[in-house]
């Protein structure tokens, strides 16, 4: 029997990394991610808090993203996500609910820095201005021609975005973002969940 396996990221190429930079791209694919489905206005929706297009913090510490009408992505550590997802399926018998561990299905990257918007407007047609995409905003859109979920989650006042894509596009998208960020001095940070 082989050793107990560790999570393999879809980003397999090696990069020179730095811990910080004006524009920092990190691979967070190992983050635990669940996909929740329920009625957009039922009790599950109430408990999750985030409506479509916005995000919220669960009591467990997990982040809840209102990714589509009646769909949420819950992410965090295993314990945080478990705490947030726990009991959702039995919460309301009239609400049709399903919970699915999507950790392995989605690559997740984080880009942070004041130039993030200028970098993203090279690869995505969304309006990234503050009124249209404020901190906490969640949207789905084509990024470098890959359909992604994007969430703005600023870090200490610095613009920062989470970008999710289908795992198989992970390597392609990571490289596309590096290319787009090059003119702004993008630095690859160490992978972290």
């Amino acid at each position: 029997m082989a050793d107990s396996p560790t999570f393999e990221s879809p980003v397999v190429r090696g990069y020179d990394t730095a811990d910080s930079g004006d524009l920092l791209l990190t691979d967070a694919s190992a983050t635990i991610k669940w996909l929740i489905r329920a009625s957009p206005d039922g009790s599950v929706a109430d408990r999750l808090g985030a409506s479509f297009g916005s995000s919220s913090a669960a009591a467990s510490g997990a982040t809840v993203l209102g990714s589509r009408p009646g769909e949420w992505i819950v992410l965090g550590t295993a314990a945080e996500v478990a705490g947030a997802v726990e009991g959702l399926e039995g919460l309301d018998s009239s609400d049709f609910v399903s919970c699915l561990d999507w950790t392995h299905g989605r690559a997740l990257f984080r880009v942070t820095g004041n130039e993030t918007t200028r970098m993203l407007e090279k690869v995505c047609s969304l309006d990234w201005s503050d009124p249209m995409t404020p901190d906490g905003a969640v949207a789905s859109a084509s990024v470098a021609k890959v359909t992604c979920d994007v969430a703005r989650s600023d870090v200490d006042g610095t613009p920062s975005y989470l970008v999710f894509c289908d795992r198989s596009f992970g390597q392609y998208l990571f490289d596309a973002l590096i290319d787009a960020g090059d003119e702004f001095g993008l630095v690859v940070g160490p992978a972290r969940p």
Partner: protein
Amino acid sequence: MLLVPCPNCGPRNSADLRYGGESHARPDPATAAPLQWRGYLYLRDNPAGWLRETWYCRSGCRRWFTLERNTATNEFRDPPQPGDKRGTKA
């Protein structure tokens, strides 16, 4: 690039959506006569004016919905609001 008023996401570039074409009712397959069924499959009103049509918000909310568009000007009629019942196919 058309700006399509997705009832869920708001105005989106048409490249983010899939065009589903003229919306038309599906006959009852148990009773449909060949002419009726093939009318459903092939014949279209194709008006030069207001058209009810379906769209799929492929890169956004992943919902199919019906909109009205003027095929002569590409203007969308009275874009529906989130929760508007016209956002579902009739």
